[in-house]
């Protein structure tokens, strides 16, 4: 039986995830831009928080939001710079809704792994950290999710 994890008060979530979120944002954006993105990440999380259905994989969720915020910031930066934007190097995530629909039947961990890999282009290292498992387990969960999706497509 799957354990139901209740959603903690936001204060707990914020205290537990803030350092992971800040690390990821600094890796992606550098120190100064990371501060603005930090606030935006947790404001977005706060807006969506009452709609969460359970308290599982909250770290993965927080890091996915952080990554989206960082990608938005990078896009804005490129759009506003005088140089021709190098679109190729901005890894555009699959449209969120489509990925959500495609993966809705997957087991929870596989769904999270596929989402983070293809929706947010996280490395297996990051996915492992986000899901609280090893890099190798993250790789396996992702590929087993993808196999399942292929099978579904063929059937």
């Amino acid at each position: 039986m799957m354990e139901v994890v209740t959603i903690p008060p936001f204060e707990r979530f914020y205290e537990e995830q803030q350092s992971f979120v800040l690390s990821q944002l600094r890796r992606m954006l550098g120190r100064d831009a990371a501060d603005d993105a930090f606030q935006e990440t947790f404001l977005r999380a706060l807006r969506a928080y009452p709609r969460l259905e359970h308290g599982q994989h909250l770290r993965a969720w927080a890091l996915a939001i952080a990554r989206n915020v960082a990608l938005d910031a990078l896009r804005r930066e490129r759009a506003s710079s005088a140089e021709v934007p190098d679109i190729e190097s901005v890894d555009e995530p699959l449209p969120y809704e489509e990925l959500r629909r495609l993966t809705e039947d997957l087991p929870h961990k596989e769904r999270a792994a596929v989402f983070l890999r293809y929706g947010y282009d996280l490395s297996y290292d990051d996915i492992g950290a986000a899901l609280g498992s090893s890099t190798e387990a993250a790789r396996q969960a992702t590929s087993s999710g993808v196999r399942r999706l292929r099978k579904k497509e063929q059937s």
Partner: protein
Amino acid sequence: MTVSPELDSRFRDAAAAEGLLDVAYDLVDSPVGQLLVAVTDQGLCEIHYDPEPEREEEQLARAFGVRVLRSPKPTDEARRQLDEYFAGKRTSFELPLDLRLAREFGRTVLEELARVPYGELTTYGTLAARAGRPRAARAVGTVMNRNPVPIVLPCHRVVGSTGSLVGYAGGLDRKRTLLELEGALLKS
């Protein structure tokens, strides 16, 4: 990686300023010990003696919604009035209250309690009568015990019919301290 205090308080302020919180709370020092003071968009919803924030957060989340965050700004007005009260410069509170959780009889009793003046004592029986149920002194005791906003709603001014202090959710020492502050009891 440590989040700097500046970055941290920037987020906590922004969360409140954008109206995204179900409950904002802060910890406030007072002559009767540390207090947890919590507000919703409707008003003051809780004052808690000897707070254990994690436990109180859970309770607030169950009662008002999961977006509970320590965020000082929304509690500033309550904190200011409490400071004035403890300095002897304020005899009544002007704060909107959120008593959503109190039902029917409890709410009627709390409304009557709000009318007990500074520095005066009343009894559980009198309060029960004013709330329309003269025999419900014991039930009034229960309502006092669960008063969500002690000090502001002055359950410390309610004593037994013989004048004994009887009880107080925050402990009798605090009840005595508050009554001495208001000049309702002589210092022993």
